[in-house]
């Protein structure tokens, strides 16, 4: 099916070329702002928008998103890496969280707005005692603090059960501990629950598999490739009525 990858008529990565070819004009007017602004501009003239196609390809050693922004020690990082791998493991179908750099994604998210709850209502009073699950997030703890507590608890549980650190355990031992977390059979030493932490970890893991690679995960767009998701494309107008599945090489945001 790979011969069909250009069926949507978009051969070039640049939005400028797309606009010229797409007939997106009404009475000679160019419609579409982000695109209209690009037409007529020479490649690379003023806006950094027109970077080289395929600029994403990086070798592992020089991958800048492998620097840590949140975790301050190897053990915390390894704990999250191991836990994420159990949530989204490597299988015959394709790579798992570890090979997709999901732990780096989680690290970056914990260091930013999401980890710090900057866009959430975090004013008190906090009434954990009055809360029911259906009414959602009700702890004063920020997400990065919940992760800290969760990591601690993963390791102390591993220590208690197997006298080892979490990331040193066998896969099925890790899975058993994570199941206990999901079912709230473990108590976290703070104003949150193990299942809360597990929920955040699961959510962040899935995001790290499938978010644009610029966030540090989804390495080489391998998450998208597994799912046959084409990433960031300009248009599916030409395939929308097709009955057969159209396979396309995915594009990341850095390729436009």
């Amino acid at each position, binding site marked *: 099916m790979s011969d069909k990858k250009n069926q949507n008529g978009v051969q070039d990565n640049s939005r400028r070329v797309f606009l010229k070819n797409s007939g997106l004009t009404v009475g000679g007017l160019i*419609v579409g702002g982000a695109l209209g602004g690009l037409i007529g501009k020479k490649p690379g003239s003023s806006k950094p928008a027109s970077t080289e196609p395929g600029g994403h390809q990086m070798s592992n050693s020089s991958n800048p998103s492998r620097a840590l922004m949140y975790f301050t020690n190897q053990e915390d990082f390894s704990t999250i890496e191991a836990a994420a791998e159990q949530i989204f493991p490597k299988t015959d179908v394709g790579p798992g969280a570890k090979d997709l750099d999901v732990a780096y994604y989680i690290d970056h998210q914990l260091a930013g707005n999401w980890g710090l709850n900057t*866009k959430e209502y975090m004013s008190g009073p906090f009434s954990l005692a009055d809360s029911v699950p259906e009414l959602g997030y009700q702890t004063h703890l920020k997400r990065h603090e919940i992760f800290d507590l969760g990591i601690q608890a993963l390791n102390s549980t591993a220590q208690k059960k197997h006298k080892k650190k979490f990331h040193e355990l066998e896969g099925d031992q890790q899975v058993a501990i994570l199941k206990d977390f999901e079912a709230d059979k473990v108590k976290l030493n703070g104003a949150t629950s193990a299942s809360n932490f597990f929920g955040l970890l699961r959510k962040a893991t899935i995001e790290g598999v499938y978010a644009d690679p610029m966030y540090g995960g989804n390495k080489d767009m391998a998450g998208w490739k597994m799912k046959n998701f084409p990433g960031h494309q300009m248009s599916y107008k030409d395939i929308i009525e097709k009955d057969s599945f159209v396979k396309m090489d995915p594009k990341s945001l850095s390729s436009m």
Partner: protein
Amino acid sequence: MAKKLPKTDIVTVGVGWVGGIIASELTKKGYKVVGLERGKSRSTQDYLKVHDELRYAQRYELMQDLSRETVTIRHNLKQKALPYREWGSFLFGDGLGGSGVHWNGQTYLFLPYDFEIYSKTVEHYGKNKIPKGMTIQDWGITHDELLPYYNQFLKMSGISGEPNPLKGSPQYKYPTKPMLESSEMKLFKDAASKLGYHPYSMPSANLSENYTNPDNISRGACQYCGFCERFGCEYGAKADPVVTVLPVAEKTGKYELRTHSVVRKVLHSGGKATGVLYVDTRTGEEYIQEAEVVVLSAYQMNNVKIMLNSKLGKPYDPKTGQGVIGKNYAYQVNFGGSTGFFDKEYNVFAGAGALGANLDDFNGDFFDHSDLNFIHGANVRIGKSGNRPIQNNAVPAGTPSWGKEFKDASIKYANRTISVGAQGASMPWADNYLDLDPTYKDAFGDPLVRMTFNWKDQDKQLGKYLGEKTAGILKEMGASKVNQGGQKVGDYDIRNYQSTHNTGGSIMGADPETSALNNYLQMWDCENVFSAGANAFGHNSGYNPTGTVGALAYRAAEGIEKYLKKGGSLA
């Protein structure tokens, strides 16, 4: 001390669809309009990197900053309400164009039945059909009276669609042809027809073709890019206030837009508003904008909040049933949808916000409710908005939600999942209502809105019935496995997105004792305050709200002009 600014004819509190329509209609007539918008300005130029699922869909780039303002929620009068701390069940817009920027564009008008729901229910089934505590009432306007305004909204935004083949359903003339039909839509239409239902293409504000509207605004056709709901349209193909009505207002020279301006209160004395108090969030300074007419166009929930905090109208009391502000809050019964898993792969990543097919055989009163223990129903639909990979990881029931089995199934079915949704109507109840929270405050120290809301038996019965229908359609479509919806429903759960179709709270009607607004959307208790958001809906239908919000905004614009000419109450 707040600084007083020179008086204008009209000030709008918020600049989304309602604020935009009011601005374009009244500036065209020569009136001076000031638009106050709490968020920032934006245009299609700002969507350079908009196809970013994490930033826009998961991290809510275009939504209200909850750290400044949210609502509190409880399930019943006895509970303590707790803040809605992170986004889940519904999302409020922020910035120029409001939610009109990141909506899908699924555009309907409510049914004739909706506007006279009380009378028609009694007429068809008798008074006993209405359970104790259900506070449905007629809207004080009929579908036919609203039709011209609806047509104005259809033409302005260029709605693409085809006639509804269901006998007795209202017929609209759509200005542009229907959207392209995908193979999933065809599958749905064929299966539904075989079952004797009446499918048709979803009416869409994502233009099916290049279009120039009566205001001479030209826009290009939709590219089916799959990044529509929660995103802005880089092509301007999706009708939003920024690419339709606001340029019209600006061109008149009569419009003044002030962004970063949060309105805290409407100032009034002796039954008339004098203006609004607002804060410039960049300088921190307070201003009073005086105006002949104040339009509350800050979205349903915020409109109710501002009315309550401004002491406009009589607050509703759920114990006595007296008062009107906060009354008849309703939502959408969205749990009757089902998900089908197919052997064949579909191009599920492609789509547009309002691309899909639907049927009304189980909506309104198109089917007999004599033996059913609910009223109204749902628009049943397949939406093809483009499945993005973080948000869509459906697996057949019984599959674990993480680990090897989950991973392999979520990938296997990534392009083999089709959902049939049911957008169920939500009825108002005496104890589902809005008031001010006694504890929690916004960034300015004003009380938050407190929502008291839970599902009732009517909702559960409706959801169960719809689950059977949607699962039935998926089986007919050839799904190998179906997760049937609506079978087990607990308390209202705010953690999962359902829909931003919050309605009611200051409803329109024919009687000042039982409604907050007359049928020109003018406040009974304050004749120069108008409000045309979904807060005016007496209940919520089995459709998305914005077509009706748009129509009511055109109706309000006409009312405001009448008021400015002759004053007084228009009803």
